[in-house]
């Protein structure tokens, strides 16, 4: 812990800290271009020069390249250093185009700031500037190479940090060029971060191109709700329209970056089709009319059927406020327990996964970066939780071994061992890992009872093709120092998470540190679970609707059609209801069927609390008051020249307010913390993890592992799983991401394709699908044989798809 003096102020920093970072701790911002805390130092730009007055080093040096050492005396205002910085800036500006007025970086441009603060106000160089041709990099990132100052941040980020190869550096001297070998859409799902890290306007945000300046934006800290990781965001909005997400630093969750799904999902909130008016039987009504009619009709139904005749449906994308009030509505009125997902299979896995987590085995996303072995079972990070893939990449760069056990051909931006295991065999696969960890190893001691249970486990566990490989990995886990265990919650069956918990608990005894990480299906699935929703399943609810026991259904921010597999059955059931109330902010398939529709606010207007996949409580601050953007009210021209008291299109209210209207009638947002405290019997603070039960050493019940899959082992299974684009219920409505959503396709092992008579590139038209659905066949031998893998896609005819696949399975 050296102590050094910077600008006459002492500071003590950990060993290995660079002087530039030490200065930051004193609030001194030394100019920098190439240095970035996530990318490290390369000393390429020479703009961070400072004077070293006393101590082991003397003279002008680059503060990003020098480790802080005891007794150093540093002066950032050393005349030689100031002069050097001034000349470096002038050099970097030699070829810089005269673009600021039309450049989207202007206003938050590091180069602008450094040029002004470096004192380079006037151009002296009269020669010709070198120029570059730009490339079309796809719909997200705009390229303007003239503005480059060769700091290499982009290529270091794209290739080293993210592990993608299609953007990099080429050329020498003044010809140095950053781009792709050919113009084309960037392959990385993290490409949007280029607009944040490039210190100049070479890469700018394309969807918000020419929309506004940083100083005009209304900005607020928020949380990404487009997967369960809950990355931290800063939202920018202007003239009643959210136009940009940027990554906000969060040391526990996302670090400095976010993924493109999270970055560009915001457009759902301003899409022209967004429902903004209340509807009664499909006809526009005022909010008051709709709300009154809702309460009256619900009361009438309750009179006839009793409280059991009314069911509540919440969602995993609602804020805790909304979820909590649904739970309260149930306890106050006695209506049926709210159900938060129509996908019961996933709900069961989530339930068992979250019951496996405890105070000592839960880890945060950034902790995975420090693991030396990461085992992923039934988890596909790029599709389910993209930033997890980036964390794995960092672990792998540090020498960590990544192992994926999955029926899908999991693709990661880093080297990893993949073991294809069919979906039904995942629990057995983990059992083999446990056997491998315990069998030949002297590292892990078991007591007599555990010995017995282990014996049973061994007897019951079936042999699967990858058994030997899995056991070897299991054994290797016992020699790891910092193993992390990741388990998905959509593809595996409910037995897998507790088994992963067992494996982690066993390995824990022989290593320094280990932990569990479970990506969940929705942004606030953890919240739904905490507020008591995990036990309420959808299937019984649907059966009750079909049996006529439930006469009214209140659906809050959930498109049941994208969650429930049998759309036809669902449609028929909804048809039989006396009253269907829907509250939502996107034009989902269910809104058109609502008897009463109430438009809800988005996270930008309502804000809210969310619990991410490890139970961290995070807050989203409202950014705008709501309403149609001025670009819309003015039809592209100036705002209407009229005075009015309301905001056009500003009808929607937060969903929780409608729910509160049915229960307690309160108009202020509920305080979620006491509600959580009640549910969890422990306190919780913003940004902190909720208190989980303390560690239990119990072995989960293992009777069922040996059962094996039903039906013959040669059968086919259909797996629908999340993809980066097109699967998440809100982001799927983002007009910005529409172009990136790939053609709908099915991925199979070539053996399976042969059995089915499919060839790569075949297009299968699904019979009787509406809208007509075409499926492109892709072959991938890393998939488990027998698995038909399709992405979850909002708005497709899943009934027809499933019918067709079932017919294939039957043959």
């Amino acid at each position, binding site marked *: 812990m050296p102590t050094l003096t910077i600008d006459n102020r002492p500071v003590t920093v950990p060993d290995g800290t660079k002087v530039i970072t030490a200065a930051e701790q004193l609030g001194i911002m030394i100019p920098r271009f190439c240095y970035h805390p996530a990318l490290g130092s390369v000393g390429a730009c020479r703009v961070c020069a400072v004077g070293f007055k006393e101590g082991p080093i003397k003279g002008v040096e680059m503060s990003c390249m020098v480790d802080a050492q005891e007794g150093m005396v540093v002066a950032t205002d050393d005349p030689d250093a100031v002069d050097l910085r001034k000349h470096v800036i002038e050099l970097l500006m030699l070829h810089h185009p005269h673009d600021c*007025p039309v450049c989207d970086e202007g206003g938050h441009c590091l180069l602008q700031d450094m040029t002004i603060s470096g004192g380079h106000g006037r151009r002296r160089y009269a020669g*010709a*500037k070198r120029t*570059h041709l*730009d490339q079309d990099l796809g719909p997200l990132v705009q390229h303007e190479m003239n*503005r480059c100052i060769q700091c290499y941040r982009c290529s270091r980020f794209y290739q080293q940090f993210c592990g993608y190869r299609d953007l990099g550096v080429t050329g*020498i001297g003044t*010809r140095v*060029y950053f781009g792709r070998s050919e113009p084309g859409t960037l392959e990385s799902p993290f490409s949007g971060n280029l607009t944040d890290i490039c210190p100049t306007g070479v890469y700018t945000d394309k969807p918000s191109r*020419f929309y506004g300046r940083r100083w005009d934006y209304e900005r607020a800290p928020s949380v990404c709700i487009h997967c369960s990781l809950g990355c931290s965001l800063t939202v920018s909005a202007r003239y009643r329209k959210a136009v940009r997400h940027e990554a906000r630093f969060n040391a526990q969750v996302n670090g400095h970056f976010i993924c493109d799904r999270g970055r560009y999902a915001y457009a759902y909130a301003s899409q022209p089709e967004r429902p903004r008016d209340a509807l009664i039987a499909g006809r526009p009504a005022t909010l008051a009319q709709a709300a009154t009619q809702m309460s009256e009709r619900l009361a009438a139904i309750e009179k006839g059927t009793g409280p059991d005749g009314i069911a509540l449906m919440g969602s995993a994308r609602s804020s805790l406020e909304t979820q909590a009030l649904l739970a309260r509505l149930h306890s106050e009125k006695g209506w049926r327990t709210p159900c938060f997902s129509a996908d019961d299979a996933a709900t069961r896995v989530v339930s068992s996964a979250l019951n496996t987590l405890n105070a000592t085995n839960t880890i945060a996303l950034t902790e995975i970066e420090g693991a030396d072995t990461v085992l992923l079972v039934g988890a596909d990070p790029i599709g389910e939780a993209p930033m997890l893939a980036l964390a794995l990449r960092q672990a792998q760069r540090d020498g960590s071994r990544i192992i994926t056990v999955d029926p899908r051909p999991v693709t990661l931006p880093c080297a990893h061992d993949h073991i294809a295991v069919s979906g039904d065999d995942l629990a057995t696969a983990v059992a083999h890992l446990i056997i491998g960890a315990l069998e030949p190893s002297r590292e892990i001691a078991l007591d007599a009872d555990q010995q017995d249970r282990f014996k049973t486990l061994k007897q019951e566990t079936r042999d699967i093709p990858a058994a030997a490989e899995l056991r070897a990995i299991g054994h290797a886990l016992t020699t790891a120092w910092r193993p992390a265990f990741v388990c998905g919650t959509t593809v595996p069956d409910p037995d897998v998470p507790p088994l992963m918990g067992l494996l982690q608990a066993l390995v824990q005894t022989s290593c320094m540190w280990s932990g569990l990480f479970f990506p969940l299906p929705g942004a606030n699935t953890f919240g739904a679970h905490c507020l008591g929703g995990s036990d309420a399943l959808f299937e019984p609810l649907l059966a009750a609707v079909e049996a006529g026991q439930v006469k009214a259904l209140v659906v809050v921010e959930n498109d049941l059609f994208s969650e429930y597999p049998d759309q036809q059955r669902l449609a028929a059931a909804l048809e039989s209801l006396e009253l269907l109330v829907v509250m939502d902010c996107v034009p989902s398939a269910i809104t058109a069927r609502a008897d009463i529709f109430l438009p809800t606010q988005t996270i930008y207007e309502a804000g809210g609390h969310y619990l991410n996949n490890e139970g961290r409580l995070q807050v989203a601050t409202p950014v705008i008051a709501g309403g149609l953007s001025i670009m819309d009210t003015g039809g592209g021209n100036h705002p209407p020249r009229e005075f009015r008291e309301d905001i056009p299109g500003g009808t929607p209210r937060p969903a929780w307010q409608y729910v509160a209207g049915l229960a307690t009638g309160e108009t202020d947002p509920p305080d979620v913390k006491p509600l959580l405290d009640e549910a969890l019997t422990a306190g919780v603070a913003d940004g902190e993890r909720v208190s989980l039960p303390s560690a239990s050493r119990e072995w989960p019940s293992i009777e069922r592992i040996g059962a094996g899959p039903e039906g013959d082992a040669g059968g086919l299974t259909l797996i629908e799983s999340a993809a980066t684009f097109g699967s998440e219920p809100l982001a799927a409505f983002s007009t910005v991401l529409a172009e990136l959503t790939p053609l709908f396709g099915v991925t199979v092992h070539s053996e399976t394709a042969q059995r089915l008579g499919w060839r790569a590139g075949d297009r299968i038209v699904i019979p009787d699908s509406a809208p007509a659905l075409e499926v492109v066949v892709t072959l991938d031998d890393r998939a488990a044989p027998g698995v038909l893998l399709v992405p979850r896609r909002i708005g497709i005819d899943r009934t027809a798809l499933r019918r067709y696949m079932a017919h294939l399975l039957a043959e």
Partner: protein
Amino acid sequence: MTQDPSQLKGKSLPPPRETSGAEALKALVTGFATTLKHLGRRPITEQYPEEKRELPARSRARIILTRDPDGAERCVACYLCSAVCPVSCISMQSIEGQGGRRMAAWFRINFGRCIYCGLCEEACPTSAIQLTPDYEHCQRAILKSVYEKEDLLVDHCGKDPDYNFYRHAGVATEGLDKGRHEKEAPPVNVRSNMP
């Protein structure tokens, strides 16, 4: 300074000074002499609005948006004028216009608020926004003081006859590709290995 009368209470005021007859007469004569002297002179009062004076070109009154020498809109909707305006009376929305140009979809100045300080003109990097000597634009209806882009846009260059921003910038626009701007070398061939 006004004094609290209660504080004066009890204090004796100085006695008023007597004016002599000669002094009064002198004052009367000087007064009349001054008046008579001016009677014969040409009046300096301008008979506005019957008479209107030509103001210098740099006087600061009604604002216009000018065009470049090629007749295209100069304003690139960079938001610098609206940022610098001390009373925040400029608002606009930038969009991508024809041929990759950045331009204002709408541009509004509320002259009810403008204090004609000229900071917008000083900040403008394209010479688009300019103050003119035309000070006669009071309105009775307040909304009439709110000028839209069509009210502001003129079809001349104003005080700056030469400047065309897009000839100096590096961005490619219709007819002015990379490397074709003032003081620009042709685009480099990144695939060349020559030193």
